[in-house]
């Protein structure tokens, strides 16, 4: 018997009972689309986390000054929490696992341009901040080493600030006023969107830290709130953290029984933990969906068994006119495989649509994993073979005389 004829026979048999075929297929359709939707949902979440991690910058460590837990208050200086110095920055720069360093001085200010104004935070840093924090420029330039040295009154605006102050016009080379001093806009940052905490990361501005210290704050003691460090690699972040801790304890003259007056946060560790969490979630969602695919498969087996019983007489006729048992087996197996693969195909289409819909509704990055779609589809085909085999075998094992007598 020719292989193509077996397939034609199977298709013909499925076509005879369209409603039953469609309902049976539905189980597989739901199973496959659930797997695809769940996995891409999980991976969308994973990608969201990854984006945020990338938004934190590459291999970033943050050193926060002024640990509040001083015992006895002995080391509290004039400015509360003020423990990091430019000397610390220079010293950290010399450590081998450290690639780039910037001091960060923060301030708030009312930005004014024409009749528009907007209150936002200003992050003062050196020229390396863009690279350390993984920001990109939308237009213009970032400030230079020279700007930092001369405390130039230049500012790079976040997208939200730029859009608010300059609706529909180009902010580059315009002059805005902050605390009654003019600043020249030299660049606009590319949009980053919301942070994991739901803050608008684009509602910000960047300046040389010297400008923040001297021009905006004008405080007697130049203040450094944080130091941001980029390690040479993600593996190096742990070593960098240890070495910075040792260095700063030494520089700050902290004795062995005293607590640190700073805190080093390894953002890479946090990011990895978050990524692991979402990966586990993806697995979990995927396996729950896989169960529904399994249930769909059992549905196929059930219907195929019923179908074999219903068609006992037909099987008898086929055998009498010369079908080998193996042809009967192949026909029934082909029926369940075609059923499953067709269901799988429709499931892939539904699943992709579903995940795009969910991603759109939840404003997540939609991420369709071709691998998950392929695996779900192949799994549906395997389901067809696995759950179709027993009914097919049962059909093939019928005795033609008994089957012909079946009413």
């Amino acid at each position, binding site marked *: 018997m020719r292989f193509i004829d077996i397939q034609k026979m199977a298709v013909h048999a499925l076509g005879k009972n369209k409603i039953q075929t469609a309902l049976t297929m539905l189980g597989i359709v739901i199973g496959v689309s659930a797997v695809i939707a769940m996995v891409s949902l999980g991976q969308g979440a994973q990608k969201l986390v990854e984006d945020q991690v990338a938004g934190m910058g590459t291999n970033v460590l943050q050193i926060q000054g002024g640990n509040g837990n001083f015992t006895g208050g002995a080391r509290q200086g004039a400015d509360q929490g003020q423990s990091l110095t430019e000397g610390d920055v220079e010293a950290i720069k010399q450590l081998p696992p450290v690639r780039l360093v910037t001091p960060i001085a923060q301030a708030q200010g009312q930005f004014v341009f024409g009749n528009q104004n907007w209150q936002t935070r200003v992050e003062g840093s050196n020229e390396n901040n863009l690279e350390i924090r993984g920001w990109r420029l939308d237009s213009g330039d970032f400030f230079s080493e020279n700007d930092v040295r001369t405390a130039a009154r230049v500012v790079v605006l976040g997208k939200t600030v730029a859009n608010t102050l300059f609706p529909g016009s180009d902010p580059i080379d315009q002059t805005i006023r902050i605390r009654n001093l003019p600043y020249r806009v030299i660049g606009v940052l590319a949009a980053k969107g919301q942070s994991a905490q739901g803050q608008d990361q684009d509602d910000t501005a960047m300046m040389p830290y010297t400008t923040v210290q001297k021009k905006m704050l004008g405080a007697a003691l130049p203040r450094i709130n944080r130091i941001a460090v980029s390690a040479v690699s993600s593996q190096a972040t742990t070593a960098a953290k240890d070495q910075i801790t040792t260095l700063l304890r030494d520089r700050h003259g902290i004795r062995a029984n005293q607590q640190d007056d700073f805190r080093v946060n390894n953002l890479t560790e946090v990011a990895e933990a978050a990524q692991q969490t979402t990966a586990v979630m993806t697995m979990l969602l995927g396996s729950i969906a896989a169960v529904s695919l399994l249930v769909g498969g059992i549905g196929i087996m059930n219907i195929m068994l019923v179908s074999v019983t219903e068609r006992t007489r037909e099987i008898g006729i*086929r055998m009498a006119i*010369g*079908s080998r048992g*193996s042809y009967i087996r192949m026909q029934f197996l082909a029926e369940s495989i075609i059923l499953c693969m067709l269901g799988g195909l429709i499931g892939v289409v539904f699943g992709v649509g579903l995940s795009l819909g969910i991603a759109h509704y939840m404003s997540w990055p939609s991420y369709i994993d071709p691998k998950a779609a392929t695996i779900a589809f192949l799994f549906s085909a395997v389901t067809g073979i696995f759950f179709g085999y027993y009914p097919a075998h049962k059909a093939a094992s019928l005795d033609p005389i008994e089957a012909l007598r079946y009413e």
Partner: protein
Amino acid sequence: MSTSSTVLSLTDAHKIYRTGEVEVHALRGVSLEIKRGEFVAVMGPSGSGKSTMMNVIGCLDRLTRGRYILDGIDVSTMSKNDLADTRNTKIGFVFQSFNLIPRTSALSNVELPMVYAGLSPAVRRERARQALESVGLAEKGNSLPNQLSGGQQQRVALARAIASEPALILADEPTGALDSRTAEEIMKIFQQLNRERGITIVIVTHEPDIALHALRLVRFKDGLIQEDRKILPEDDILSLQHPLEAAHS
């Protein structure tokens, strides 16, 4: 040697069914030879072994003891697959209840044995068309079984049986589900196929008027052949009735 003209020969055929403790001796040593071109009517009361013999001749069942040679091939020791292939190429079945595949066109039904034989679509379609034509149903190729009358369905079944040019046509009560006029039509087609194309036909029947269309009568009783003779022109329904049955009526 008469092998070339012998279509089938049974030698000392025994068939014993075992159902639990009970043994049923359905065939008790039957020997039968049928030559090419014969038209044989097999008669006998239920339980006489004629159905068992039909199953054996039709390669649906195997003998417990004895030899069965079909078209020069020893079938007694064949595997299941070989039996299926033998049914496919050497035997054409016609059943009491037509046994067409439901919701499948007449033409496709006639084609089916040739599909299992692995013939190309063009060849089998042409042969199926010719077979339908020879039973007078050339116009009904696309009809579904449930759109055809009983007589038409049986003619499709006949077309299916002859399409692959088997050595033997086996018909089990082919008119049992038909009214007498249609039954007569079907029997005319059997006769025509036998006379004009020399097709060997074996028919199992209860009814003497059906058996009258055949050329030879084989009567079974208790697993043995009780009577085996030519059907003569002077035979009629009464003379073909079983002696005992005749005595009762």
